[in-house]
């Protein structure tokens, strides 16, 4: 992994050139490193090769996405006749056509997805932060056992609860509503976020909590006035991840929302695949792009939190 020929150098020099990797550094605020010394052509050739490799890989990774966007802007007849992404013949007609091609305007699906996402975010923030505070800061009987159970549920395949959950929601008359997709979030069923927040609260200085305790604050106050304000990064990470997962969720809406008016974006997109024989590729691509735009925006805005939150707990 070291790319510089350090071995040839005397130890003192080698030590300074081995790049300093600060422990637990925030990737974006790493201190500027001392400029590397010119060490002959081989090192710069290597660096160029390295960047060429990475750039080629980047292109392979990103090209399908760019092609999707460009194709959505091409006239339908052109999409598969010319697969190049360089074209001047651009039109928005796929978007206007796709928007209305499913009897219900696409805005309805966007709205449905948004409502579910907001409900899920609220639910996760409230329930997971409460549970996380208990796990991280309170001493009560059975805590370790509960904590182990909570961690285990992160890894539990949801299929073993799928059928009974479906029956419960059906008995409650919640089919065709957003409730099956939102209510469980208010009961902290996304244990992953509990874990993320526990990790975060544990990293806060203990003295803060002790000081609040000595000042006579109850747990509810310590939670609301000390913990929550300090937890903003963990809260942001949770909100962003919840948005991405709920927005992209397909299985839940597929079984609980079966009438067109209730479709989320993902289920509505499936409609284009079902109608493949008469399919209008341009419209399908255009609405796919529309469905990805919120994800992309969240990625742009929240990248920092995503990468950090993700690195500490490690689940996609």
């Amino acid at each position, binding site marked *: *992994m*070291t790319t510089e020929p*350090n071995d040839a150098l005397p130890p003192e020099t080698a030590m300074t050139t081995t*790049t300093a*990797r600060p*422990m*637990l550094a925030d*990737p*974006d605020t790493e201190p500027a490193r001392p400029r590397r010394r010119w060490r002959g052509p081989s090192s710069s050739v290597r660096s160029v090769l390295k960047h060429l*490799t990475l750039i080629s*890989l*980047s292109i392979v990774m*990103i090209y*399908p*996405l760019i092609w999707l966007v460009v*194709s959505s802007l091409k006239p339908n007849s052109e999409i598969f006749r010319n*697969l190049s992404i360089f074209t001047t013949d651009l039109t928005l007609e796929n978007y206007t056509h796709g928007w209305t091609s499913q009897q219900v305007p696409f805005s309805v699906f966007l709205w449905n997805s948004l409502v579910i996402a907001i409900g899920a975010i609220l639910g996760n923030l409230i329930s997971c932060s*409460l549970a996380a505070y208990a796990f991280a800061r*309170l*001493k*009560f009987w059975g805590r370790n056992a*509960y*904590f*182990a159970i*909570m*961690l*285990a549920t992160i890894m539990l*395949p949801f*299929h073993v609860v*799928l*059928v*009974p*959950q*479906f029956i419960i929601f*059906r008995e409650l008359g919640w089919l065709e509503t957003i409730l099956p997709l939102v209510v469980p979030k*208010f*009961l*902290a*069923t996304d244990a992953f976020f509990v874990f993320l927040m526990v990790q975060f609260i544990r990293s806060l200085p203990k003295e803060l909590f002790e000081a609040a305790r000595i000042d006579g604050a*109850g*747990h509810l106050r310590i939670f609301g006035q000390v913990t929550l304000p300090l937890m903003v990064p963990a809260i942001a990470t949770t909100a962003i991840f919840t948005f991405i997962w709920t927005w992209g969720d*397909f*299985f839940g809406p597929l079984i609980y929302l079966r009438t067109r008016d209730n479709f989320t974006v*993902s289920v509505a*997109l*499936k409609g*284009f*695949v*079902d109608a*493949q024989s008469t399919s209008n*590729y341009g419209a399908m691509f255009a609405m*796919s792009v529309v*469905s*990805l735009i919120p994800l*992309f925006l969240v990625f742009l805005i929240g*990248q920092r939190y995503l*990468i950090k939150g993700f*690195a500490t*707990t*490690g689940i996609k």
Partner: protein
Amino acid sequence: MSSLGELRTIAREARRKKDSSLPKGSLKQRFPDNRAGYLFLLPWLIGLLVFTIGPMIASGYLAFTDYNLLQPPQWSGMDNWARMFNDTRLWNSFRVTIVYVFVGVPLQLALALAVALFLDRGMRGLSFYRSIFYLPSLMGGSVAIAILWRQVFGKEGLVNAVLGVFSIEGPGWIAHPDYALGTLIILNVWTFGSPMIIFLAGLRQIPEMYYEAAVMDGAGKVRRFFSITIPLLTPIIFFNLVLQIIFAFQSFTQAYIVSGGTGGPSDSTMFFTLYLYKEAFTQLNMGYASAMAWFLLVVIGALTAFNFWLSKFWVFYDD
């Protein structure tokens, strides 16, 4: 510490507690926050009972019944399990899933690790590359990307256009039983960004002094890589491996969309979860689907346990 690391610690502490006698004191002293603790935990506890433990028990029961939602469940003993044993379609779906998991996950992790090692230095453009590689893993699970994949690997798709440049005429990858699963594996590899981020974080946590000490002792690059980087990264490799296997077993959306909901051509993309979905929600064989779900849980559980056992031989813990 990762969730797996936490579980390890808890297990170890529980073992230690058994040995040493518990500290004496009243319950009140040992658990001063009992009331507050349970109040804060209440939503999670309700959720655990109502949406996890209760349903697990219920599906365990349903697995031994015949249940189609319309009539009440009929006890059928081992019928579902006998049917599973003889269901060639089920075993095919199991095989497809196994291939997907055991080819897709190692490929994905190998690429993630390779790129992370490549990136782990204060190199120029690091955050740019990181973002580019991470973006697909955020979108990879969505229906839109699965739709895109259908076209990229279609007969007239992007891949065949590239092959056409070298005058190779590619097949319709999605429509060909030999290749359709491969396109899903490639889709999984395409989302290597998430494990890559975890590897990057792991690399950053290796104390620099180890490398400095090794350099002083005259260890070369290769030696440092195999004696410091890799051993200290094994817990992270293990963590990624366990979780990615568990998640890959549960993949559904991509297979569903890419095959147009059929699992075709000729069941070549019929994931176990897709077959389960069809049994439950198109055939309304809720009892059979519950039995399948428990089978899945047992397989994943056994595999994870095996992975943990295996980890004793190759994962290095610094503590």
